[in-house]
């Protein structure tokens, strides 16, 4: 072990008893060595203090980073809460908006005549319609329309069945074909509702105003209510 190493080991407390005693004896008679040891002690202390100060500085900076990190997390949390509130309010407003389907007036259907063979298919379609099975009724009315494509009763109930199964395009197509007969007025009203459902607001308003302006129309009140809701 050279002198340099010996001094370090002495100051670090790494010498065993014998080595330490021998070193102390050596120091007693050697002033230069004593000075060297003192100087090394100051150097080591200075380095350690500098290192501790650096560590303290790093901890202070880390402390700030913890607070900044938590602040960021809080900001995100607040932003998330605000977003949730905004989404909830939007959903509420959206759900509060008038829904065209709320203006789909009741249609009780036609009586089913039992025991008449010619009307079996129609009866089945109407029974399905009355039972609320619009998927089935739309299929059955469509089959009947192949034989009677201009029959306004079949067109009307087929159109309602399509509308209620969200096939609004088909419903519009069939309502449009009704240009006379018992179902004309109701078909015009329902066509307006179907247009509105599809986003055809202007077309819907035009049709509804026609009904509303007709004082003798049985659907005048309904048309007025829809127009009011649309405004």
């Amino acid at each position, binding site marked *: 072990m050279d002198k*340099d190493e010996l001094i370090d080991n002495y100051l670090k*407390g790494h010498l065993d008893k014998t080595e330490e005693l021998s070193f102390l004896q050596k120091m007693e008679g050697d002033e230069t060595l004593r000075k060297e040891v003192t*100087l*090394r002690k*100051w*150097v*080591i*202390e*200075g*380095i*350690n*203090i*500098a*290192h*501790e100060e650096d*560590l*303290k500085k*790093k*901890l*202070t900076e*880390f*402390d700030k980073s*913890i607070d900044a990190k938590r602040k960021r997390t809080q900001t995100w949390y607040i932003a998330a809460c605000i977003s949730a509130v905004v989404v909830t309010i939007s959903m509420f407003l959206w759900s509060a908006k008038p829904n065209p389907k709320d203006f789909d007036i009741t249609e009780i259907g036609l009586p089913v005549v039992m025991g008449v063979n010619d009307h079996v298919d129609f009866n089945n379609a109407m029974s399905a319609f009355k039972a609320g099975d619009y998927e089935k009724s739309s299929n059955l009315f469509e089959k009947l329309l192949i034989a009677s494509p201009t029959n306004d009763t079949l067109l009307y109930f087929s159109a309602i069945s399509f509308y209620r199964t969200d096939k609004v395009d088909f419903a519009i197509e069939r309502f449009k074909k009704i240009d006379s007969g018992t179902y004309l007025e109701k078909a015009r009203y329902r066509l307006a509702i179907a247009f509105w459902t599809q986003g055809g607001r202007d077309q819907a308003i035009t049709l509804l105003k026609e009904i509303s302006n007709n004082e003798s129309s049985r659907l005048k009140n309904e048309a007025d209510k829809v127009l009011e809701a649309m405004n």
Partner: protein
Amino acid sequence: MPRELNLENSAIIEAIKAGSEKILFQLYEAYRDEFVNWAVRNHKVSVEEAKDIFQEAMVGLYKNVKGGRVDSLTVTVKTYLFGIGKNNLLNLIKRKSIEQKVMAEFEAVPEYGIAKRYDEEHMVYLAKRIYRAIGSPCKEVLEMFYANGYDMESIALRLGYKNSDVAKKKKYECLKKLEERISVSELMKYQ
């Protein structure tokens, strides 16, 4: 809410001994709030003072582990850390109280004692200042050897020296450079 550290005492002590600063930051983050809240509530110090004391407690823990004074603990590292923090806190309160009494209870210290202590502090301060200015790679070599306690082989590996002999030679040169500068500074004081 900071996470509690699920580490054995021995693992923490070993990590500190190996020079890991990450473990110190983890300990700091895990226990800072609890210590600060306790100190502010029970001893009426400010949050900043409490944080400062806890940071010093962290340095104290580091120093004691590196100095070989904490090889094993009968309590958790957290309890040990809070113990150092509590002592530091009581010292601060005592200091504050002494400052308030100003010189009323001043105890005379022998003149030569003050002068000797002053000289020592001055020399350590000088060594620290020159060490800080010594530049690379001497600063790193000396820090690794004296402050981090790494052996020559480890220093050679970390700083890319060929072997431990090269690292040892470098450390010797850096040490001499530092000591010479301290001696020159001291001599200049008397010229």
